[in-house]
């Protein structure tokens, strides 16, 4: 009886419509984080030729990020400028992940119409496309904006190509005397514009969170004073000219306060100034040590600063309203000039190894320190607003230059080709 049943069941099972085979599954792990190949076709032109090569700007920007590998121009199979001209199979053969085409036209050489399209080569579909109308002077900046759009579309992160850098240039006059200029350039170091010139040193430029103002230290009156300057109008005013040092200003994340170093009471201490009222509150109280180079945590509740209270300069953390400071850096005999990543996880600083100064990052949660640069005399690290790169000044042949390094240390680049010595760079926030 039972055997009969078993036979029936076995028969039923045999008759079930089993698939010929279960779907084959292949697991892919690892992969690489190599730069994405992208085809950037030189933009077509109509009418007056533009003063800037937009596709070149985009290509350089993307390449500088280390995340993209633009195809060599000679490898471009064809040069379409409009979607109808695109043969996707061509671009698939080149294994490019994206295809950027565009067109620049002008009837008068002053105003330019710009359009671009980014395609997914394999799906043969447009990922993003835009049209602009800009004056000739806006073309360069538009190129950076397009690079930001491509970057964000293909990586999922915001690009920083249209942000700016502030730094101090030191120039020699014919008679051997020096002059100083506070300059603002594109994110690639190109197109520097002088916003302040002085025969006396300028130090520590720092961006307001809105990207419209700068604060800095000027010795124009014979001593270190803190100024705030509106970029669009050039209007400036002194906010701290107390007796003694007035230096190292840092804008709070909400833009309403400055943290700065004052020695009006004899010893350099960290203070917080309310910009609207000018009210001061003292943060540190250590008359035996120099406390300086304040930087705000993104929360705005804590301040990191450099102090030699332990004998050698190290980074400390203190509540913005004051209180006991706790030491943050323990690796190496010199850690100074801290900056904090926008997400508050990483701290960059000048870190000495065997008497040489390098840029290092410290994971604020784990305390792990990684030295990023192999240049020497590195100073003033400043995070890009997307947190991927760190801008800093270094020395080359005894002259100060701008450089940038990715937070993982893999991408290193030199910025700008200025003839002057540059120092004290600061990366701007995102443009609103």
């Amino acid at each position, binding site marked *: *009886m039972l055997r009969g049943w078993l036979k029936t069941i076995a028969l039923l099972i045999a008759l079930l419509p089993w698939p010929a085979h279960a779907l*084959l599954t*292949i*697991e*892919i*792990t690892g*992969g690489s984080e190599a730069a*994405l190949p992208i085809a950037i076709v030189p933009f077509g032109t109509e009418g007056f030729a533009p003063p800037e090569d937009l596709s070149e700007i985009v290509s350089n920007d993307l390449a500088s990020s280390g995340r993209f590998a633009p195809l060599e121009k000679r490898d471009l199979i064809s040069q379409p400028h409009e979607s109808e001209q695109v043969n996707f199979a061509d671009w698939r053969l080149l294994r490019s992940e994206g295809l950027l085409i565009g067109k620049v036209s002008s009837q008068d050489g002053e105003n330019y119409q710009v359009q671009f399209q980014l395609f997914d080569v394999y799906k043969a579909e447009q990922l993003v496309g835009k049209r602009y109308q800009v004056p000739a002077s806006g073309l360069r900046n538009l190129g950076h904006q397009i690079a930001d759009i491509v970057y964000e579309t293909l990586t*999922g992160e915001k690009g920083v190509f249209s942000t700016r850098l502030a730094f101090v240039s030191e120039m020699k006059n014919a008679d051997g005397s020096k002059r100083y200029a506070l300059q603002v350039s594109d994110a690639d170091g190109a197109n520097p514009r002088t916003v302040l010139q002085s025969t006396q040193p300028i130090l520590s430029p720092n961006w307001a969170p809105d990207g419209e103002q700068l604060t800095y230290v000027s010795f124009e009156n014979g001593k270190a004073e803190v100024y705030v300057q509106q970029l669009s109008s050039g209007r400036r005013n002194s906010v701290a000219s107390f007796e003694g040092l007035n230096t190292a200003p840092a804008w709070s994340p909400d833009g309403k306060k400055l943290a700065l170093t004052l020695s009006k009471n004899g010893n350099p201490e960290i203070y917080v100034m309310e910009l609207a009222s000018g009210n001061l509150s003292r943060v540190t109280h250590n008359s035996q040590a120099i406390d300086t180079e304040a930087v705000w945590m993104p929360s705005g509740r804590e301040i990191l600063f450099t102090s030699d209270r332990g004998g050698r300069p190290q980074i400390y953390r203190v509540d913005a309203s004051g209180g006991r400071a706790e030491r943050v850096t323990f690796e190496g005999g010199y850690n100074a000039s801290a900056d904090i990543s926008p997400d508050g996880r990483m701290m960059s600083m000048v870190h000495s190894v065997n008497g040489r100064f390098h840029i290092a990052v410290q994971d604020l949660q784990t305390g792990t320190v990684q030295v990023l640069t192999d240049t020497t005399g590195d100073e003033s690290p400043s995070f890009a607003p997307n947190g991927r790169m760190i801008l800093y000044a270094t020395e080359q042949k005894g002259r100060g230059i701008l450089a940038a390094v990715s937070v993982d240390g893999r991408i290193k680049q030199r910025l700008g080709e200025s003839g002057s010595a540059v120092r004290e760079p600061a990366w701007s926030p995102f443009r609103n």
Partner: protein
Amino acid sequence: MKKTFVENFLAGSYSFLLHILILALFVIGMDFSSTPRKLANSDDVEIVQATVLDQSLVEEEVAKLEAFEKKEREAEAERQRQVDEKLEEARKALEQKEQEAQDMEQRAKLEQERRRQEAEKEQQQIAELEKQREKEEQRKQKAEQERIAAEKKRQAEEEARLQAEQKRKAEEAAKAKAEAERREQEAAKAKAEAERKAEEARKRQAEEEAKRAEEAKRKAEEQRKQAEEAQRKAEEDRKRAEAEARRKAAEADLQRQLEQEQQERDARRVQGVVDQYSLIIQQRVKRFWTRPSNSEAGLQCTVRVTLLPGGDVKNVTIVKSSGNSVFDRSAENAVYKAAPLPQPSDAKAAEALRDFQFIFKPE
């Protein structure tokens, strides 16, 4: 002389009056008021309490009677004492008179004689009175004895009556008790009877049930035997049929087995080729996969791929997204960039590699 006579006469009158007085005193001392007291009506008394109540009544009654007797006896003794006193007084008076008479005799022989005669006469009267008193005493004693006897008799009768009453009550109680016992016995008997009947009924029912169960069992057994028989028969039939079928299928089976073995050998061979090419394809796609540098560790996406003959990609679809569009696109693009995917020359293996899926994960 004349004086003697008067004196004699006076003496004789005294004596007479005294006697009359004594007699009258006897008569007054009599008491005929004693009557038997009626006892409480026994009919009103509850049977159960009868004995006790009656006993107390009787005792009370006896006590009363005894008290009464005592009182009477005391009264009688008092009377006797008074009579004796009076008698003594009379005797003393008589003696005085005799003395006087003797005195007078001395004075007068005649008078003496007469007095002697009178004295004789008086003695006669006294003797007579004495006799009368004795007689009276006797009569009284007799009457008293009679009364006592009557009282005793009455008491005896009363006692007898009470005893009889008690006896009757006891009998009645005994009778009632006997009746109750009888009834109890009857009830017990009835109960026993009922129990016996119930027991019988139970026994009968149990027997019936046992009988029914037996019957059912017997029937079930019969059915089981029949079923077994049927089953056995069916089994035999089936076995015969199976044996037949086996015999008939044996050759076909053998043929099929050979074919199946051939198929299995083919399948194994195909599987081997598929495995080999899966590995080749995996290596190739991996080489072409450029994942976003900021991809989080937990990301994973599943991509289904169909190929054209020759290994070109016909279609790539995201079956399960990582939730990160850039990561998903990197996976899709890896497949496209790896195309054409290497294909085996074996047609069956190539067929298995036309439609499959990739799972992409950073680690």
